[in-house]
Every structure is written in C-alpha cells, then in structure tokens.
C-alpha cells in the first residue's frame, strides 16, 4: 500500500511492536517483514515498495540484521533496536554504511540487575525449589531432597563485565555482605572492587559468577571449561547476558555430574530451546529471557522509540529522551 507515511521495516519483532503499531499506525507505514518467509527484495517488490524508500528499521534480537540486508537498502540511515545488545546486528557494516544504530542503552540496567540478584538469591537459598515443595509440606509428605541452602552473605561474587548492568549488580550486592570482584575489558579506576584480567582469574577467587557482559567475538564462550574448572564444585553461575557467553554444553555436563554447584540462567544458546537435562535439576533456576521485561521498561522503551523515530523523521532534535547510539 503506497502512502506518504514514512516506511519502517520491522524485524524481530520487538515485544512492544503490537502496541506500538496500533498507537502509531497514523504516523508510519510498518512493514511487517518479520512475518514473511520471503527474502527482503521479493518481500518489498510484492508490496510495490522500493528498497530506496526505506530509511529506518525497527528490530530486536529475534532476527539477525546481516550485511547483505543492510546493503540492499541504499537509503537506510537509522536502525532502532529495542535491546541493549547489538550482537544480532552487523555493526561494522552499519559503521561502513553510515547507518546510525540506536539502542536501549541503560534503560534496562536496573531491571536486569534486579533479576540477576533474584536468580542469585534463588539459586543459593533454593527459593524456587522450596516453593515446589510447599504443596508436599501441606500433605506432610517428606520433602523432595532439595539440595541444602547456602547463605548469600560472605560469598565471593565475581562479575564478568562491569558495564551498565554489572555496575548495578555490584551496587545491589554490597549490603548483602558479599565480597565483590570483577573482570572487564578495561580496569575501572573509580571502582573499589578488585580487578582481574581474565574470567579464569576471577573465577578462581569466586564462589559465584554473574555474567553480564555484551556478546562479541571476544566474549563468545568467555565462561568456558577452564573458567568452570577454576570456579569449582560448589560454584554458582548466573547469566543475564547472552546464552553464548557460556559453553552451554559444558555447563550442562557439569551440572548433571555435580562438578558445579548450581546456576541461574535467563539466557540460552538456542532460545527458546533449553537443554532438557536442566529441566529436572533442583540446583538450577531457569527463566525465559525475562530479565528486562517489566511493565515499567516496556512503557519506557515505547516512549524512547517513539521519540527517536519522531525526531529522525521530523529531522528535529527531540525534547524528550531518545535512544543512545
């Protein structure tokens, strides 16, 4: 349908899309490419839309945005992703083509940090496992063998990636009496916690690892067999970053064999598929990539995306906050 509304190519789609589409259907022409099985050129020609009419993409990380797709849209200038991470986007190609990438920036840092703490406390204190037993307790059946609960206080917690999320995690852990340390690409001079140059080194000094870094070529499988070995039999891993930050196969093997103490996992290598061996373990807590997903963050990102797209298409600076590059 040719209209004079600006075209926005939608991929993913982002969680906000249904609401966003209904709220802004009079402002933009949303091309729901995510729902099509055609390759992009055929999809566009089936709608009589010229690739050169597309200046903006709205996406999340459910679909990859590869170089060839970027190159096929000669007028593309803005890529809005509702995620913090950009591992689904060919960023070097964006830079090469001069495509601005707008992300959620720090919008979700608090929610994700909250969730990381929730997973950490749950795994150590066996909250979800005990919750499963509450029904049996009523009937005075012997509770299932929940692995013994362990204190949060006094634990040495190694944060892998002291970025926006890692910093919020550390701040929340302090009053729990945890000893906090970290590894990151670079040492942060203003931070009071001990720095280690690698994940193996921080794991050797930790009881718990909280993985919150972004996924890049360098950080792929940053938590590998050597790191898990260094962490030890009683070690616990919490992952709120990306599934591929951990060698998932090795983690599962160790959880099943008892070579690692437990895990709290919000992300997986091949979502929404979760290794079936995990589904019967009481020393793991699993969640469906939900760490950032609150009503508050939902409404916040709706506003941010709206302001960003509005400012872009009006070619005017925004009066309200827009997304970071």
């Amino acid at each position: 349908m040719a209209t004079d509304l600006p075209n926005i190519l939608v991929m993913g789609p982002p969680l906000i899309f249904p609401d966003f589409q209904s709220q802004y259907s009079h402002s933009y022409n949303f091309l729901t490419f995510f729902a099509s099985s055609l390759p992009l050129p055929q999809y566009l020609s089936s709608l009589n839309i010229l690739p050169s009419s597309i200046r903006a993409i709205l996406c999340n990380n459910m679909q990859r945005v590869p170089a060839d797709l970027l190159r096929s849209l000669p007028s593309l200038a803005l890529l809005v992703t509702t995620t913090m991470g950009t591992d689904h986007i060919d960023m070097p190609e964006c830079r090469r083509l001069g495509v601005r990438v707008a992300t959620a920036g720090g919008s979700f840092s608090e929610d994700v940090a909250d969730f990381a703490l929730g997973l950490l406390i749950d795994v150590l204190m066996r909250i979800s496992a005990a919750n499963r037993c509450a029904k049996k307790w009523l009937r005075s059946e012997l509770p299932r063998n929940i692995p013994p609960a362990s204190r949060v206080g006094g634990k040495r917690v190694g944060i892998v990636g002291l970025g926006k999320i890692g910093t919020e995690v550390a701040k929340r852990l302090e009053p729990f009496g945890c000893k906090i340390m970290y590894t990151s690409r670079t040492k942060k001079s203003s931070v009071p916690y001990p720095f280690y140059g690698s994940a193996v080194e921080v794991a050797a000094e930790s009881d718990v690892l909280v993985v919150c870094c972004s996924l890049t070529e360098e950080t792929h499988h940053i938590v590998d067999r050597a790191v898990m070995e260094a962490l030890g039999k009683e070690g616990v891993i919490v992952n709120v970053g990306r599934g591929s930050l951990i060698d998932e196969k090795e983690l599962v093997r160790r959880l099943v064999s008892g070579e690692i103490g437990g895990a709290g996992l919000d992300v997986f290598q091949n979502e929404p598929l979760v290794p079936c061996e995990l589904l019967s373990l009481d020393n793991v807590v699993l969640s469906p990539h939900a760490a950032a997903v609150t009503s508050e963050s939902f409404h916040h990102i709706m506003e941010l995306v709206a302001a960003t797209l509005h400012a872009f298409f009006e070619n005017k600076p925004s009066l309200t906050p827009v997304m970071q590059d």
Partner: protein
Amino acid sequence: MESIGVLLLCPVFSYLDQELDKRFKLYRYWNYPQSVQFLKEHANSIRAVVGNSNYGTDAALIDALPKLEIVSSNSVGVDKIDLNKCREKGIRVTNTPDVLTDEVADLTIGLILAVLRRLCECDRYVRSGKWKKGDYKLTTKFSGKTVGIIGLGRIGTAVAKRAEAFNCKISYYSRTEKPESNYKYHPSVVELASNCNILVVACPLTEETHHIINREVLNALGPKGILINIGRGKHVDEPELVSALLEGRVGGAGLDVFEDEPNVPEELFGLENVVLLPHVGSATVETRTAMADLVLGNLEAHFQGKPLLTPLV
C-alpha cells in the same frame, strides 16, 4: 556433663543433634509416645530443654520438670515459651538472635523479587515447555519502589539496608519512632500500608502484633501492593489474606510462615502472584550451624557457671 539430662522437643539439624548427644544425656521427646510415663521416669534427671519456634516450653512442661534450669531455644522467636513462668521459677531462657538476621533479610529480598518478577513462575514456564510457544508476560519492577517495614529491629533494619541498594524508599511502623533512622515513620500500620508498594512484616509476635495484618491493612495495601511475611504466621489474619488475594484486593504475597504450619491454605496454590515457602528462613547450612553453636554455647556456659551468651531470661 554427659550425665546432665537434656530434653530435645523436636528433630533438629543433624550437627546439633550429634553434638547434644555427645555432650549430654539426650532424651529425644518424640521417641516417647507415652510422654506422661516418660516424664515420671526421667523428669528428675532433666535439667535443660531444647526446643524451637514451633515446639515451646509451656507451663505444664515446666511443672513436669522440677529440675529444669535452662530452656535453650533453637530459634529467635520464643512465643511458645512461658517466659513469665520461667522468670518466676528462676529458669534461664536463651534464644539464637542475630545469627539469622542477615539470612532472613536476604530471603526477604529474594521473596520480593520472586513475587514482583515472578521468578518461580518463570522457572515453571520454562520447565513446562511453554516458552517454545511464546514469551512470558510483563512483570513488575522492584528498583525504586517504596518498601514499608513493620518493626525496625535487627531484621527490619537489615531489610532496609538491602532495599536501599535497589534505590527503594523506606518507610516503617514501629511501637516507637526511631529518629536516628533516616526512614519515614508512619504512626499506624494502615497508614504505612497505604503509602508503600511492598509491606514487610519483621516484628516479633506478641499479643499486640497478633493479626497486625488484618482486612483494613490489606485493603490499604491495595491491588498493586504486595505483602511479605517472614515473621510469624499469626501476624497475619490468614483467611482475610486469602480472600484479599483471591479477590484481587491485594496484588501479591510472599510467605515463609503460616498460622498453622505445616498447613498452607490450599486456595493459594496455583496463584502466580503468590510465593509460598515451607518456613525456610534460617535453613541455610551456615545459619543452622551458627544457631546450633549458640544453643550448645549457652548450655555449656550455664552448666559451667559462666555468663550466658544470649539470655532472654
């Protein structure tokens, strides 16, 4: 000390059982179904009782144990011990304060997150395979919310410190205002409940605080508010809480304690805004060991004529 009779009212953490057995002549009360007979035979050798929050020492038991010198409770709460009678008869009473303060405060934050962010439900969602069909729903943010604490004692203060790191505003109700704290005081529980998102019960159980959470408080807390109880079941009018939750007059609850443990109101099972735990606050290995060491330390101090570690009476 192996000849000193110690009556153990209930099964305890294995480390405590073993150590009591090693150091004293231990009588495990639940092994004697004919308690009257048992007491007749052994009362004269029993000089100490060890119980917990659910198994206390009432007037009848005190009368049945003429040689009783000390009640060492493996708990903080002593609402089931007849303290007045103990005072009357010069019987010492000890509990295990402080060692579980941090753990209970940690559990409180864990429960808040479990309720607001639906952690247990998320875990169920993944285990049931539902994630393959679609994402889980929106949950509620914790950071920045207002936490209202009933009782600003050791546990209440520890909860406040943790919640502050989540940028929460802290308000409280207490018998007396604590001007040295920087938190906002409310002179009634209803007013506290009206002005917070998360209401935490962290006071001791007394006659005044029995059913401190009643219908009026629950209505004031409201459909967006959540209740966290890590105190005693009897702090809450449980049937009122159940109907408030079923009718949506309260937004959710995280409960570690119940009026009639181990009975948990059946209606609450299957409510995804409710997290129920089988009284696990104090269940970590570290805390159980620390509590046991206090029980043993108090008993030893008493029988060696030294000052008690944590006396209440």
